[in-house]
């Protein structure tokens, strides 16, 4: 009976592992007391904060939080669209405790769907009221801004000048040389589309995009497509989110980053606590922790944000040459509610591209 005994043992062992790891998820997350003291100094030893974030790059900040509070932080990198979809499919439990990063439209949607928990940190006043929800459901950790990356070698070959403004992109001489991502896939592209419509007005805004569309042969299916395909010389101009990563990639591939002279579109990146999150208290403590100026500064570094993209006055980010007065006038209140309508109209306009 040796073999059977071995197999039996194996089964028991695995079932054990599965049970322990499965149960481990929920049991570690117990709530702490409700006192209103400064939470960042509180111990969360033995507790876990689950985070969905737009990137794994924030790990050092989470590690610092773990060190300070004893809480274990588990991060999963996920796009904001996917977070929304998963919550829609599985209403039984929150996706995680903390939602870190992602376009404002998704946060607004989640707020409307009652999937966020209200939280007003004691330090919330440090953030410009423009960059946080008036009802306290989300706040932003920074701004993402849009611009171009240009492959001068490619443009030179075709005798084309480097575009300086958004309006330049409508010129027919750039036909076939521009790439941007599908705004339904990339939150930044949606922000750019929406910002230009806001800035120019509904009619002129759509006329603008119609002209740009004629110069574009297809829309990238990934946020990074414009950056990459411009770097490989497939296209001369890529519409991109401008941050340190863009400047680094430009240096690596001999490209030029351009802040358009006729205005810079921007979108706040949200942070929120999920409704009924088991680790709610830890997530709230993390928001307090994040709002400490020294941590905000570290976050800016991890995000590769320019000082002007920082939403907390007084905190200095990197200097990437952005000028705050160039930021476009935008209507954030319709950012989430207009998304479906804008994307539907967009999809009708571009057809199969």
């Amino acid at each position, binding site marked *: *009976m*040796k*073999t*059977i005994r071995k*197999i039996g043992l*194996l*089964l028991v062992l*695995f079932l054990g*592992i*599965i*049970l322990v*790891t*499965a149960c*481990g*998820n*929920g049991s570690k997350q117990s709530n702490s007391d409700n006192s209103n003291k400064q939470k960042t100094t509180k111990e969360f030893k033995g507790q876990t904060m*689950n*985070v*969905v974030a737009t*990137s*794994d790059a924030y*790990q*050092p900040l989470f590690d610092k939080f773990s060190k300070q509070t004893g809480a274990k932080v*588990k*991060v*999963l*990198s996920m*796009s904001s*669209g*996917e977070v929304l*979809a*998963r919550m*829609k*499919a*599985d*209403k*039984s*439990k929150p*996706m*995680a405790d903390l939602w870190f990063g992602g376009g404002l439209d998704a946060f607004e949607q989640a707020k409307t769907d009652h999937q966020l928990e209200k939280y007003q940190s004691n330090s919330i006043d440090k953030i410009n009221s423009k960059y946080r929800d008036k009802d306290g459901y989300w706040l932003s950790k920074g701004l993402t801004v849009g611009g171009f990356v240009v492959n001068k070698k*490619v443009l030179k070959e075709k005798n084309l000048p480097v575009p300086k403004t958004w309006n330049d992109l409508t010129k027919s001489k750039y036909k076939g040389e521009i790439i941007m991502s599908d705004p*339904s*896939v990339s939150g930044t592209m949606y922000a750019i589309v929406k910002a230009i419509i806001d800035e120019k007005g509904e009619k002129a805004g759509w006329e603008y995009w119609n002209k740009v569309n004629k110069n574009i*042969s*297809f*829309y990238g*299916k*990934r*946020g*990074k497509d414009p950056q*990459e395909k411009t770097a*490989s*010389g*497939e296209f001369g101009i890529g519409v991109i989110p401008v941050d340190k990563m863009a400047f680094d990639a430009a*240096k*690596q*591939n*001999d490209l030029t980053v351009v802040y358009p002279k006729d205005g810079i579109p921007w979108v706040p990146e949200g942070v929120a606590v999920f409704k009924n999150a088991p680790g709610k208290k830890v997530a709230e403590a993390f928001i307090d922790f994040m709002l400490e100026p020294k941590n905000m500064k570290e976050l800016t570094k991890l995000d590769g944000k320019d000082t002007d993209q920082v939403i907390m006055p007084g905190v200095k980010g990197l200097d990437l040459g952005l000028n705050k007065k160039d930021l476009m006038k935008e209507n954030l209140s319709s950012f989430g509610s207009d998304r479906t309508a804008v994307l539907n109209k967009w999809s009708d306009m571009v057809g*199969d*591209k």
Partner: protein
Amino acid sequence: MSKKHLGSFIIDKFVYLIITLSILIFILYPYLSIFVQSLSETGQKITDFWSENFVLTQHSVVVALITMVLSLIFSVAVTINFAFLSKQKQKILRLFLLVTMVSPPFVTSLAYITLFGRRGMITHDLLQLTINPYGPQGIILMQTLSFTSLNALVLIGLLKKIEPSMINSARSLGAKTDAIIKDVIFPLLRPGIVVVTLISFIRSLADFQTSTIIGGSFKMLASEGYFAVISFGDIHRAALINLTLAIPALIGFFLYIKYDRDISSVHHGTASGELGIPLSKKGFIFPITAVLSLLFYLALLLQYGSIIINAITVKNMGHFQLSWQPLIASKIYLNDTIFRTIIYSIIAGLLGSLISLFIIYYGQVRNSKWMRLIEMIGTFPYILPGTFFGLGYLYAFSKPPLAITGTTAIVVINVIFKQVAFATKAAKASVNQVHPIYFQTVHDLGGTVLNEWNDVFFPMTKQGFALTFLNGFISTMTTIGSIIFLVHPGQNLMTLVMFDVVQRGEYQVAAVIACMIILICVIMAGIVFLLIHLSERSKKHVSLSPRLN
């Protein structure tokens, strides 16, 4: 009934019940849930979806058919070419093919754009052309390259089963090399060809990654299904798309059932055994297969060469420089993911193999018709797109009675049951090698079912179990579609991290992860083959007669 027999009877029934229930709950129920959901939930009706998106379906099916044919041509060429090679060369190439089963499409696509893009080294710099590489041609090429390795391994597994004496006798009767290939080897490969044709067709239909990188404005069902979820949160549309994909896949499945009897002997690329003497390099077939194989191996070398280059260099002003940077940068992405991925893959490999062996035991040895039906249900994850299986899990297990979404268990269970399909095929091959007389002998000597398992079934299928385990392990190490919508924080696996960094354009990190996955799979393969080798060696010294209690 004696106490011994009663205990054995209870255990026997218990195992039978557990196997049946687990397949029904973890395979049939999720599929039923998503079928019901996509047909009943308010929203677009499937018929409207079809009439509006006929072009998408057409794109997917046409690409899948062409990929299927091309990949078949290359895999048959590589397989036939194997018959001309020495044992040593065969060993090296098999390892190479095994390594390339982990084929992240991003690398191939990048290399393709670098060489054949609008400013590609060959098209633009050498030939002064500006060709658009985006579209179906790119997708078909990338998929063909990705699928051929597995196909060739399956066929080589069959090639090794050909009795050397058959080739020798054909030769002694004066048959020429081309005739031997045509009349002896090719007919014996035929059942395998049916399988690899089906595998390629289904994999192409379900592939949602390649077209996002190289498709340009050419849209396909699988990637649209993925985007429906991630950009619009529209799971209903994703379900409709997957249901549409399921139709051509099911048609393929019926063909598969027709040939099932023959392909039960097909391995998932890790067959053992030796092929007869290499054929002499004469005739027309050898040069043709040699050229096609060479082209294929070169393309693979280019692909994996660029993975390694990406993993150990950084770019500066357009030039590559050797650096540890990618490895260091990948650290924050991986954390405890490597350990977790290995553990999950081991669990999936072991339990998947065990379940499959029991299914085949009851279906074949005990001749249970019900278990054969269970085996057929177990095949579903193999013929339907992985994302469909994952979405099914999301629907089925997010509500009572089995609300397990968000737990580690659902991810582990998913990868276990995803293996059952291929594992049952491999298990069947190894169970078929056990002569029924052994089971009969146990009964004649008054043995119980437990004696049967302990003294005949498990000892004699040990090698099959090891190979099935390895298949399950590799397949879990490389799986994406079925778990992408299931993982929560703290449950991520290496392939998902790789998929994620590819989406962000962090190719260097992706290349490091790809190298790690390959290394882990190769090490595991080494361990398994070493164990098989050791157990075979000890067999030579010990009497072969089974021990009877």
